[in-house]
């Protein structure tokens, strides 16, 4: 476990003491990208919330490097891990820039006033995420896709070592989806950012991730590299897709087969 940056030891996650997924072990090196895939309701969000310390674990331990997550101070964790969740954020009279700047919270003083250094980082991150043009727009009045990009910028602004993203691409158009993935890879190369996210787009998961975790039922269905996951008919089984359903529609059938394959 020494070589891993992120490590979960037999964790059990769920709500109200009802375990949803048991004995989950994730091992990730620094700078690796992990994707969670699985059918709707498989517990992807629950897993992400639990490993981000937002939801109490029902058992086991999450390690960040050598440190036990549950024993870390909130301020220290805030400097190392940031999140983007799917919950809608309802704020009033806050510009997009204000929202991005909230990511500087762990670094500012008692009253949260931004230093010049903070302002510089906010500007830089907004450039990086291509949201400088909506900087002064009211966060409540922009599209869902734009909101998603702003919240991602907020997370990056927090200068974390690891970022946890719940369906970060769901509202993005295809151009921004690709740009987003490019950005993640850039951050990984430049800053050694480790990423854990859930994705619905299997094609994207296939090309972007180092590891893939498949969730279905009470235990982790499968955990491995994209090559190992996208082989034979595993994806079809994971999502309960049956060839029979598509008989007669050659295009859909071909698409289904295509998704499950891994090509180098």
């Amino acid at each position, binding site marked *: 476990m020494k070589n891993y940056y992120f490590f979960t030891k037999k964790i059990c996650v769920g709500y109200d003491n009802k375990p949803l997924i048991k004995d989950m072990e994730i091992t990730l090196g620094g700078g690796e990208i992990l994707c969670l895939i699985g059918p709707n309701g498989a517990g992807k969000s629950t897993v992400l*919330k639990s490993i*981000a*310390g*937002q939801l109490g674990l029902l058992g086991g331990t999450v390690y960040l490097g050598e440190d036990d997550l549950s024993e870390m*101070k*909130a*301020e*220290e*964790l*805030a*400097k190392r*891990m*940031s*999140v983007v*969740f799917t*919950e809608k*954020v*309802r*704020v*009033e*009279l*806050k510009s997009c820039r*204000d*929202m991005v700047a*909230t*990511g500087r*919270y*762990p670094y*500012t003083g*008692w*009253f*949260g*006033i*931004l230093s010049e250094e903070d302002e510089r980082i906010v500007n830089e991150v907004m450039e990086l995420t291509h949201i400088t043009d909506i900087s002064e727009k009211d966060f409540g009045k922009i599209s869902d896709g734009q909101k998603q990009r702003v919240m991602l910028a*907020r997370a990056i602004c*927090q200068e974390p070592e690891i970022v946890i993203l719940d369906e970060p691409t769901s509202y993005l158009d295809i151009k921004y989806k690709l740009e987003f993935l490019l950005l993640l890879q850039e951050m990984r190369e430049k800053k050694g950012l480790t990423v854990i996210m859930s994705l619905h787009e299997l094609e994207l998961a296939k090309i972007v991730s180092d590891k893939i975790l498949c969730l279905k039922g009470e235990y982790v269905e499968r955990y491995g590299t994209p090559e190992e996951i996208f082989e034979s008919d595993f994806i079809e089984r994971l999502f309960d897709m049956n060839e029979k359903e598509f008989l007669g529609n050659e295009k859909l059938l071909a698409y289904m087969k295509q998704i499950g394959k891994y090509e180098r």
Partner: protein
Amino acid sequence: MSKNRKSRNITVFFLLGACVFIFFMLNICIGSVRIALPDVARAFCGQENNEMVARILWDIRLPRATAVWILGGALSLAGYLLQTFFNNPIAGPFVLGISSGAKMVVALIMVFFMGKGISVTSAAMIFAAFIGAMLSMGFVLMMSRRIHNMSMLVVSGVMIGYICSAVTELVVTFANDADIVNLHNWSRGSFSGMTWENVKVMAVVVSIVFLAVFLMSKPLGAYQLGDAYARNVGVNLQLLRVCIVIFSSILSACIVAFAGPISFVGIAVPHLVKKLLNTTDPIWMIPACFVGGSAFCLFCDLLAKTVLAPTELSISTVTAIFGAPVVLWIIKRKENRKP
């Protein structure tokens, strides 16, 4: 923060401050006896020869105006805290039944002790009101765990308010004749009859709480982003929640103990101030709410004293006339925004 925004905010503070000053002076000069400004100035310097004018100023007008200044600010701040806490623009100490809960316990204590001929000190009154406020608050919190619909939460708060008011009425009805006049006036909300002793106590309590709330402005700002993001940036949510509940209850308690329940200020003022500042950043909102609440209450108290003079209106009558339309406006705007 851009320069533009900063200068706008400073202008707003200057305007609100000027309003407070003007209404404060008007409150001192206008009343059953009109006192000219030069006389006021002379009285301040202790050179007023007319004993009666000096007495009216020192013993009646000044403590009353100071109390309105302090309590008005406290009321508006309590409303702002509750709105932030419940993420609900129409939350406030009055609509959530917190004022009425405090009123009920204070009425019980007052009738009980007055019946035995013991006078109750200001501090004890605040404490009794605090117990009542916490009782109502506890009930509202319990409801809020089950009810996630914001309007239903307000409705249940109003119901709690009615129950507490009914109990208060009952107690007042059975109180001694001599106490009833006082109690009745107070239970409808009034700033009359403030003494310097009252003012001292409220000044200490309110300024301590104000300072504490102002020091919390950074976590309060993060709290506005919702639980998940607040926790992610390192806010201790549980501690923050407990602090908000206790501070808003102390503020509400302080107001009720001295002036009785006052409606709508807690909702209307923070909303108007927010529109003026065009920001929800607590570091601006907390002091602005306080100053705005002072200005609004000084203005309303002036009307309460003068409109039907020599009869004095209850302060809630006036605040409701100006405050309730604001609340309706907020609700209408919220409905419009829904798709």
